[in-house]
């Protein structure tokens, strides 16, 4: 017999809201990568316009979490689930902000011809997006093996980011007229690298949720 059925239902709802938030952020990130690849300013503007939905849902999650703490006096894994939902929603919201930042860079680059075809940057962004997708999946299924694998991918993104930045900045001398574009692209790389960090934070939260112990996957 489930004694606290309504409490359990509310915890399930909280989880669903968080998964939904994750999906919204995934979409935003995917659209941002597309907008970058296609220099699509209209799409970039849509990402910025739609960001309020993610912010609103994050607030809703926080409000629900606070009410559950206040009214249900949760302990042990229930408490961890609620605390972790506050933390994860904040990581996801931040990732969505990076999608907005990428969109803004797309607008700033505008229709200016690119100094070189974009291959590595979208590929890195794809990896970061995959990390978010896996983090949400790991959260849904409480799969700590998947969560812990995030450390590997984060190392890869960090390394690749270092190489890309070197490469982009070395173009400064070669293309002095394209400074704006070069700076915007280096910002984009930074946003992608930070996205991977936040996905890794989510993975840490999942391990904490399941095991009740703190792991640092973000070394």
């Amino acid at each position, binding site marked *: *017999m*489930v*004694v*606290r059925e309504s*409490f359990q239902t509310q915890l399930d709802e909280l989880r669903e809201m968080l998964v939904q938030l994750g999906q919204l952020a995934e979409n935003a990130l995917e659209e941002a990568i597309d907008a970058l690849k296609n220099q699509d300013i209209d799409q970039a503007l849509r990402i910025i316009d739609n960001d309020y939905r993610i912010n609103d849902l994050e607030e809703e999650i926080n409000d629900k979490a606070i009410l559950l703490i206040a009214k249900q*006096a*949760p*302990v*042990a*894994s*229930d*408490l*961890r689930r609620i605390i972790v939902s506050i933390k994860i929603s904040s990581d996801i919201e931040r990732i969505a902000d990076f999608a907005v930042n990428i969109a803004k860079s797309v607008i700033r680059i505008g229709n200016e011809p690119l100094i070189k075809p974009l291959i590595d940057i979208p590929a890195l962004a794809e990896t970061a997006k995959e990390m978010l997708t896996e983090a949400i999946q790991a959260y849904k299924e409480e799969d700590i093996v998947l969560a*812990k*694998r995030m*450390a*590997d991918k984060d*190392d*890869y993104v*960090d*390394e690749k980011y270092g190489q890309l930045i070197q490469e982009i900045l070395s173009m400064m001398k070669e293309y002095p007229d394209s400074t704006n574009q070069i700076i915007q692209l280096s910002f984009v790389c930074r946003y992608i690298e930070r996205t991977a960090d936040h996905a890794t934070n989510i993975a840490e939260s999942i391990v904490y949720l399941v095991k*009740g*112990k*703190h*792991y*640092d*996957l973000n*070394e």
Partner: protein
Amino acid sequence: MTTLTIEKKNNKRKIEKNQSTSNASNKKNVFETKDLNLWYGEEHALKEINLSIPENEVTAIIGPSGCGKSTFIKTLNRMVEMVPIVKISGAIKYREKNIFQPKYRVEELRTQVGMVFQKPNPFPKSIYDNIAYGPRIHGIRNKKILDQIVEKSLRGAAIWDEVKDRLNENAYGLSGGQQQRICIARCLAIEPDVILMDEPTSALDPISTLKVEELVQELKKDYSIAIVTHNMQQAARISDKTAFFLNGEVVEFSGTDALFSNPEDKRTEDYITGRFG
């Protein structure tokens, strides 16, 4: 760089365990039970209990109705023997002496180990006489000394200011929360070593409950306390260690912080999160 390295940032459980072992070396236990079993007739109410109640700490005992928690603390001052069909095996050491030894004087034990019950049970006497009752039995007749004991005990139970001008009034005229603190004061008057509390706040309103909880925190500086409670949040708030009883067994006994944040046993988790019980 690409090799997977997962380091535990800080394994809190481990740290806590280390602390508790270091505590064990310099912190004494007032009670230690060894393979304690108790039967009410055929019913096996306590099974192989090995628990220690540390000095100057609050030990909470939680568990569903009928799990043996009240039986357990009533065994510590041998009150359970008042039930005629009780049979006990194993040992309970109070300050390293087995309280079941034939030579052991139960009156002496109960002087050292006071008890506060679920329902406030003051005597139908004045507030003053309630508190002075124990010391008088112990032969104290000097009015000045009795006055001092009464004041000290009432202050100790955080009720002096509320009753100091009406010490000669009947204790029955006080509120439930005040009566319970009178009972705690009565317990303090004989200067016990250990205080056992059997659901001391379950008949009290929330504010009186918080007052008694605050009081317990104060009292542990001078006394060692074991408290049985149905209120898990109360156990979480006021105790240093918590024992979870189920069907007469101790399922888990650990630091309260660990037990309420990350219990080791699934049954403990289910109970404290309200999944059963």
